[in-house]
């Protein structure tokens, strides 16, 4: 029996086989979707670049200001040219990938737990708990994300941490709604009743029965949201409210290249291209993942 037939066995002999088989089928479905695979390649490449940034590029080139090399067009020495302070643009973009991923990671780490903590009990208990929690969610859902982030940055001062807080504060409500909807579809399932009869506490049922089943759709939603998070973070950086100079944040790089846009176009446009390709990658991947999960349900 090959690995493949074991995985695709319609009558799996163990839980592990069933679970791995499910994943393998999803992977096969994803593979047929060329757009999604393109997205996956982009995201994986970005991760590798961010992780191995110090290996593939020289950090000094990103910070070293060589004023006689200002605003050089592309050359073998500087593939993407240099910026207004003579720093190598490609190297800065490579290190910028780290900042972008850190922001995305931090926002996700805040948003998903909050969304689950609000959405799961709301769907599970119903009644006034549901009403109160969803009212709060609706209030936050009605907030304009970027503008609220602006206001936060104005009060707290610009910086990555504050940008993360501001984005997270406006990004969690859809997760709460999603978690609630997922919980509602399973609230009255027999396996939940069985768990209740066995004397499991509410907390235990939420954490061991409902949470694991809700996670896949939350993760898909997160992948689709990543692009939005990246764009908001880059927008804040562009406005000068995210990462502060001299850090190589992509949005801030676009902003600093604006002054020389007409004569040295590469300074502003190339970092912007990185923002675009990255968010496109996450969108393509998320879109494909959603298709896969749709066809299974």
């Amino acid at each position, binding site marked *: 029996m090959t690995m493949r037939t074991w995985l695709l066995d319609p009558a799996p002999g163990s839980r592990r086989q069933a679970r791995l088989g499910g994943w393998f089928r999803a992977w096969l479905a994803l593979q047929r979707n060329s*757009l999604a695979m393109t997205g996956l390649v982009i995201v994986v490449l970005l991760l590798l670049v961010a992780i191995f940034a110090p290996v593939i590029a020289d950090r000094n080139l990103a910070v070293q200001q060589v004023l006689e090399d200002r605003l050089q067009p592309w050359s073998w020495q500087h593939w993407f040219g240099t910026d207004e302070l003579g720093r190598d643009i490609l190297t800065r973009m490579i290190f910028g990938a780290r900042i972008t991923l850190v922001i995305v990671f931090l926002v996700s780490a805040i948003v998903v737990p909050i969304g689950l903590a609000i959405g799961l009990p709301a769907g599970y208990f119903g009644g006034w708990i549901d009403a109160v929690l969803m*009212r*709060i969610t*609706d*209030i*936050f859902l*009605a*907030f*304009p*994300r*970027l*503008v*609220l982030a*602006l*206001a*936060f*940055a*104005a*009060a*707290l001062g610009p910086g990555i941490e504050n940008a993360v807080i501001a984005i997270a504060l406006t990004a969690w409500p859809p997760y709460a709604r999603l978690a609630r909807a997922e919980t509602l579809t399973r609230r009255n399932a027999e396996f939940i009743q069985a768990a209740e009869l066995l004397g499991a506490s509410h907390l235990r049922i939420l954490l061991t029965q409902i949470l694991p089943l809700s996670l896949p759709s939350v993760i898909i939603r997160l992948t689709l949201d990543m*692009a939005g998070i990246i*764009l908001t973070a*880059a*927008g804040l950086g*562009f*406005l*000068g*409210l995210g990462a502060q100079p001299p850090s190589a944040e992509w*949005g801030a790089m*676009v902003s600093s290249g*604006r002054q020389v*846009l*007409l004569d040295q*176009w590469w300074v*502003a*446009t190339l970092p*912007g*291209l990185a*923002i*675009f390709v990255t*968010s*496109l990658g*996450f*969108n*393509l991947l998320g*879109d494909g993942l959603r298709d896969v999960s749709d066809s299974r349900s």
Partner: protein
Amino acid sequence: MLGRVYSAVRAFARLLGSVSLTFLGLTCVTFVIGRVIPIDPVLAIVGDKASNETYERVRLQLGLDKPLMVQYWTYLKKVVQGDFGNSVMTAHPVLTDLLHVFPATIELATLALVIGVVGGIPLGVYAAVNRGRWPDQIIRFVSLIGYSMPVFWLGLIGLLLFYAKLGWVEGPGRLDVGFDDIVPTVTGMLTVDSLWAGETEVFWNVMGHLILPASILGYISIATVARMTRSFMLSQLKQEYILAALAKGLSPARVVWVHALGNVWVQLITVIALTFGSLLEGAVLTETVFAWPGLGFYLKNSLFAADLNAVLGGTVLVGVVYIGLNMLSDVVYTLVDPRARGNS
């Protein structure tokens, strides 16, 4: 009949309740941002060179000696009256400033919305009809590109290409310096005002400035509108009445564009309202790129002048527009869809 009136009144009361609650939430957040987060709001106003007496006077003026709830209540009363305090930067009341800059943003966002709707709905319908075939794939890819686009970057590229290289459109700003102050202000929207005054030359200059930022914002909303239209249409095209209409001998075009699309409008209204809200936000970035003297430009400048009153006033304004749009789409939804009326 009486029952219907009763349920309509009840639905309206519910809506009003939820809107006021959201408004309270919004002002709560802006209050916290303005009064609680800054470590010392007094110092932010008087500066660190002020004497103790001035400091104490301003502290009492701001009511900072009172409990938080009382302070919030005072703040809320002022906001409801449209009093956001004075702008440090312009020395005008913030509300005056906001009313001065907001029409420019409305003008930009409205044209963008028109582009988004006129472009997005036909694309979405076309994609749904050709589901899975190559037109669908292409439209899907184009929308995904729109979703992934940093709007400020697209703006810069647009300026570089269409203004600097090709010279097809006018540059940053709302109109050329030579045209300043020709047209009297009526609505604050220069396209409307110039036509009102019969100044076609000014109108075309304004359009030359407006068309590029509006198209760029419009493209982003085409992406949203096309995708939503596609998914709404797909769920309609699956229904049996479509089959019945086709079997009856109606032309496929009529079935798609009149019957199916007719049922999709209700859902689309919500999407369009929300798109308008996100366009207002996108305008913040676009305005910065195009030096467009609207709300976003004003917010950004206030931000860097540490003008917290102006920033929070702008935030409340955008928030209120958001809430208003949500409410409007709810109301329209109830008016258009008889099913939504009965069940509350």
